[in-house]
């Protein structure tokens, strides 16, 4: 899952980026409204954290332009301003959630994850596909009750695939949503991670969970996902 953080306060942004990355999310950071708006409108983010007081372009305008571009990316607003009115206005203008500064970092992470979850129609932190359970809060994966030890990238690939059931997910899409600009990435990296993931998820007597469609991408097995 890839998150865009638009925040001009350098130290705060640094801390948030570090925290989001540690919780298994790919993060891009924009330090002003214009850069933020530009990035947000690429449509590759699963959630956007938006500060209101930004240089060059205010958070309100970034949000308005995003919604005008028909992008439904969930947006969490950060505000240091008082007054309920502006919050009501923002929610009405298409924001999905808000936090006021100074916020709790743990709460911010939980809210972002909840936003991502809800955007794909899931309401609990534990995602279940067939006999696989993925706990987004703990970042743990179990198959048939047995814990499976995944690397952070493998975990993120699996999480993303579970969030897009039945859909064919291309390598390009995985790259876009799993890595931020700070990563060195190539599509063959994805291939390597997928094969590792397959191997680790493999349990004797069970169907392989991830299907490869040549030249198109990956998807969770129909029958498995249907459950």
């Amino acid at each position, binding site marked *: 899952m890839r998150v865009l953080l638009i925040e*001009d306060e350098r130290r705060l942004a640094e801390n948030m980026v570090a925290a989001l990355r540690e919780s298994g999310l790919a993060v891009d950071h924009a330090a002003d409204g214009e850069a933020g708006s530009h990035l947000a409108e690429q449509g590759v983010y699963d959630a956007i954290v938006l500060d209101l007081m930004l*240089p060059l372009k205010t958070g309100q305008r970034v949000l308005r332009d995003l919604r005008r571009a028909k992008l439904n990316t969930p947006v969490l607003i950060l505000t240091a301003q008082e007054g309920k009115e502006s919050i009501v206005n923002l929610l009405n203008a298409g924001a999905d959630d808000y936090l006021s500064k100074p916020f709790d970092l743990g709460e911010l992470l939980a809210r972002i994850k909840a936003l991502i979850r809800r955007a794909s129609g899931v309401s609990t932190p534990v995602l279940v596909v067939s006999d696989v359970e993925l706990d987004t809060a703990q970042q743990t994966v179990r198959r048939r009750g047995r814990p499976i030890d995944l690397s952070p990238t493998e975990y993120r690939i699996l999480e993303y695939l579970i969030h897009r059931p039945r859909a064919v997910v291309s390598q390009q899409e995985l790259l876009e949503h799993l890595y931020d600009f700070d990563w060195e990435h190539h599509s063959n990296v994805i291939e390597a991670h997928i094969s590792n993931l397959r191997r680790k998820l493999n349990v004797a007597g069970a169907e392989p969970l991830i299907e490869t469609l040549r030249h198109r991408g990956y998807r969770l097995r129909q029958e498995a996902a249907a459950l």
Partner: protein
Amino acid sequence: MTGSRSITRRLVVTVLVLEFVSALALISAIIVHERDVQLKAFDSSLIATAQSLMGAVQDNEDEADDVMLDMRSVQVGKAAIFRVEDERGRVLGSLGDLPPMEKPSSAAPVFRDADVNGRKYRFLIFHALRIVDPGKPSGGVRHSITIIYGTPVRHVWHEVVEAVRFFAIATAVLLGITAIVMAWLVRKGLSPVHDLAREAERITSRDWHFEAPESAKSTAELRPLATALEVAMARLQRSFEQQRRFTSDAAHELKTDLAIVKSSLQLLAMRNRSLEEYSKGLALSLEDFTRLESTVQKMLTLARLEQPTSSEESSSAIYSCSLSDAIEDAINQSQPLAKFRTIDVSFESKADAKAPLDYRDALLLFSNTLLNALQHSPDGAAVQIVLKVGESKAWITVRDHGEGISEKAQAHIFEPFYRGDPSRSRKSGGTGLGLSICKAICERAGGSIEIVNNHGGGALVTITLPAEPLPSALQASSVSLKAQ
């Protein structure tokens, strides 16, 4: 409403009293005049009757050629009293009780007032000559007749009262009408006051908008009040809004700094970390915390400086702070930054002066101004500080060669938390309180500070302070501190 004074009532009462007094004066004049007229008429009738009495004195047709009073053709007034005597004191005829009265010696008729049985009478004493048988060769017999005739004067007063009563009634009616019309007129005339009050009543701490109603503005007497109210309200609104903005900006600033500190610590606590990570995280947190501290410190400084000086304090303002020393200290303080940016800071002064400032405030003033100049200077540029001393003032100019200030920024540059760029970005460092603090220090000392763009580019800060020139031995000293 016992304590309140009504202009309407006072006006009406004043007018009525004036009107009443003039009516009284008029009536008095009428009384005097009427009495005069009536008395004259009365006296004439006394004379006329007395003369007809005289006419009634006839020859007695006796030996002594005496005279008698023939009353047949004489009509005397009601309740009249008279007595007719001849020269020997013989009473020819009388009516009523004549009060004793001395007779005048002169022949001219004389009027006398007297009381008879409690009634006021006016008498005419009249001497006349009656010659009996003037045709006789002896020339006839001369009789000197004295006639005293009087009637009560009451009916004179009756006439006067009659005449006055009309005026009195007319005046009373006029007073009544005046009272009603006045009350109505004054109330109507004062309606702009009520309009103004109603408009003023609408002012709340949230809505300061005040526009004096047209009715008040078009009333000459109310215009100054209405205008003064408008101006005062606008001023209050401005300062109130400034306060509100300051509070909101301060809250924003503090919350942001708090958010940084909190997130730094929470990030550190998210999971177990290595000793190195912890120490690095703690160092960063401490840095963040120091910034929060400095923001709070600056806010407190500004709050202290903006507190009105007590009269006691301002009267004892001592011209104790050497401007030259403070500027040199400020330059020394900013040396590390200047060195780092390879900016050359020069200071030139022909004379020193003492200003009524606390030394620490003066240092803060100059170091903030200098810091601002350094922040807006490109690397390797120069900053020039010049101190000029006049008779009771000193001027300090700080000139940089940066980008200068925009026209838009010029109006707001001394407002708290205002940062030159619209972003309010903190990139340039500082909280946006530095120049506000400078302004507060200058104004507290009775001076001023302004920023203009230099002709050759860059900004020029001019600080004007009240100062006493120092007869210093170091005259024409020029200090130049090279930053490199």
